[in-house]
Every structure is written in C-alpha cells, then in structure tokens.
C-alpha cells in the first residue's frame, strides 16, 4: 500500500522528469592523454555523463562557470554528472586548464 509520503515523492519525481518520452542515456567521456574524449558530446537534459580518468595524474571535470564539478579523479576513478541544463556546457580540468570539453545539451 502506498503511503502518503511515497505518493508525494512519486509526484515530485514525475514533475521533475523531462518532457521527452525518450529514456535517459548514459554517455561516457574518457580522460586520457590530457584530453577529454570525445571533446564535444551531444546530450539531452536528463542524460548522465560518466567521466573516467585513464591518465596517471589526477584530473577534474569542472564547469567553466563553476556550476558543477567533480572531485579529484585519480587514475581509474569515475564521476558521473546528471545533465539538468540546456545549452553548451563548457568544462575543463582545474589542475590542467588547457584541457577543455563541451557538453552540447538539448
């Protein structure tokens, strides 16, 4: 039997989901050779992006505008981002600012 709290939670989740009927997709970005690969990635709001560091040194994936960012990712570590905004989401590595990438969110 559904409790009142469960019902409210379900409603909140329903309201919070994106209008599209498509299921959210999980994308992968490899951090390798001091590059985000792919450098440009087209995603939809609600999708998840998993960043995996394959370099020997720590990196981050951090929004240029500071709105989101990973912790330090050591070799082999992963971090995932749920895309909640639309537009070009530019990001970089805080330790190695020459490393840049963009999520193109529609």
């Amino acid at each position, binding site marked *: 039997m559904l409790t009142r709290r469960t019902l409210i939670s379900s409603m909140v989740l329903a309201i919070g989901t994106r209008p599209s009927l498509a299921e959210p997709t999980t994308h992968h970005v490899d951090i390798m050779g001091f590059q985000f690969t792919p450098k440009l990635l087209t995603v939809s709001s609600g999708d998840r992006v998993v960043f995996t560091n394959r370099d*020997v*040194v*720590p990196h981050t994936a951090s929004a240029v505008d500071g709105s989101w960012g990973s912790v330090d990712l050591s070799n082999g570590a992963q971090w995932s981002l749920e895309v909640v905004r639309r537009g070009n989401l530019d990001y970089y590595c805080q330790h190695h600012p*020459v490393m840049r990438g963009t999520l193109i969110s529609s």
Partner: protein
Amino acid sequence: MKSTISKLVTAAMLVTSAALMAPNASAKDATDLNDLEIAHVAYTAGNIDIRYAHLAMAKSGNEQVLKFAALMLQDHKAVNDQAVALITKLGIKPMDNDVSKTLVKNSQALIAEMSALEGNAFDRKYAGNEHAYHQFVNGALEGVFIPNAQNADLKSLLKAGLQVFKVHEGHAEMMSKAVGN
C-alpha cells in the same frame, strides 16, 4: 621530415648524455643504462621536482608559482606512485647509478642556490629552472630512456610520464615568462 626528426632525437641524446654524464670518465652515461637503472633515474627525477616544489611552496608568494608548485607535488607524486606500483608488481628493485647520483648532486646545489633567493628573484629562478628541467627530462625520456627501455610496462609508464611532463613544460614556459624571464 625524417632527417629533421633524426636531428632532434640526436640532439636530445647529445644534450641528455652531456647533461647526465657523471664527472667520473669511467662512469656509464645515460645511453648505457639498463631498465632497473632507467627506473631509478625516472623516479629520482620526479622526486627532485617534488623537492623543488616543496621549496617553492615554502618561499614563494606568487600565486601562479604556488599553483604550479602544488601541481608538481600532485602530478609527480601520482607518477611516482604508479612507478612504485609497477616495481611492486614486477618484484624488482631499481638500481642506483651514476646518472641518478649526478641528478641528486646537481639538485642539491640548485636547492642551496634557490634557498638564498627571495621574492621575484626566487620566482624567476624556480620558474626558469622548471622550464629547463622539464625540457631536459622530456628530451631524455623521448630521446634515450623510452627507446632504450626493454620492459613493455616500464616503457608504457615512461610514455605516460612524458605526456604529463610535456604539459608541465608548456605550463612552466608560460609561468617563466609571467614572472619576468
């Protein structure tokens, strides 16, 4: 094109041999090292840059220099941690050698020199040395150690290190210009 690359490699080897050669004429130079010795030199070179970074953290008040030094502490530790993991996996013990000894000896003299400097004079010396040191290490890795390493895992780690240190070299060059070199 081929001759240009060949000239560059030759130049890197000459620079490396000249710079790394021990004062003792009978000592082996960088081109004669085996894998265990190459591993020791690579680890030692990383530790030396960590020591320079600790000095910069203690002495500099320049934000850019401090940020770079913190990056050196982080990245060189990460590379050396990978080296320790590889050494443990292979069950080997890196061999000290004249090249490592010369690197340490030279670094001790430089640390003494830099320790006596203050303010912008220190920043310029540290930044200039970081640029030159990374150029030198990258030349040695690319021209001598990576081609000469026999073990595939060691060669792979040296290549990964080179990728890291090339980024450092570019970063150091910008820092060096920014502090007035």
